[in-house]
């Protein structure tokens, strides 16, 4: 059964307070060299069907539920497979 990965990230223009908080915590941690952090979500889906069907099903799900298009972009791909660009 294909495993599909959906990556959901905040749109570039949306402030990501979590990412910013991590950046500001870096100095306390003594970590240097990390200049920017963005935090998003990663979903691993087990989907019935051949690879193509699975990708379509996952894209449909991402589009309708997993991502909120007002604030997020997403990408869908087979686990380990090549990156595929999502809607928009």
């Amino acid at each position, binding site marked *: 059964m294909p495993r599909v990965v959906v990556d959901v990230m905040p749109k570039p223009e*949306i402030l990501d*307070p*979590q990412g910013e*908080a991590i950046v500001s915590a870096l100095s306390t941690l003594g970590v240097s060299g990390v200049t920017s952090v963005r935090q998003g979500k990663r979903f691993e889906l087990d989907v019935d069907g051949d690879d193509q069907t699975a990708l379509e099903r996952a894209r449909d799900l991402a589009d309708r*539920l*997993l991502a*909120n298009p*007002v*604030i997020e972009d997403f990408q869908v791909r087979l686990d380990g497979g090549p990156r595929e660009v999502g809607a928009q």
Partner: protein
Amino acid sequence: MSARIGVVTFPGSLDDVDAHRAVRIAGAEPVALWHGDHDLRGVDAVILPGGFSYGDHLRAGAIARFSPVMREVVDAARRGLPVLGICNGFQVLCEAHLLPGALTRNAGLHFVCRDMWLRVETVRTAWTSGYEPGQEILVPVKHGEGRYVAAAGTLAELEAEERVVFRYARGNPNGSFHDIAGVCDASRRVVGLMPHPEHAVDGLTGPSVDGVALFLSVLTAHV
């Protein structure tokens, strides 16, 4: 006959008991609606209460939006039924695209429970006609994801059309754009806000009784 106001209970709704009580205090009859219902029992208005529908898993309101009762609420709202979304209810209305924008994690990253002063920015809505323009009211907020965001164009439109209904007046608890605490749709009958007017209806348990006017407003709006 008194007005009948539906209060939707999703699995995970929490402030539905408070919304029922607020409706009663305003002199109307609360009608319990269930997330699986396929009709609205002829109510005169609907409240989507606060809480964590479906645990707020994924994103607040994201799953509730697909429940059967929401299909009815969306249809009825398009036909002019007054709808009020409080906190989680506001999040559901945004996810359902009845209201523009989105509610994201508080800028301070923590859940915040605090009494806040709000300014009523417009009284031209189904739920605020009972206030004075510019009136300041004291109402609790309690949420972890209440930071209102929207695209620049949307914000400009909301401001131009005076659809920002409530604004945080003395300090912004969550980093909302333009200090926005609540907005309405173009029909001005669908209103969503993060603060909890239903917790400000009784001096014994709330910081004020400033919330009552919301529930009174809609009684004149529907007739």
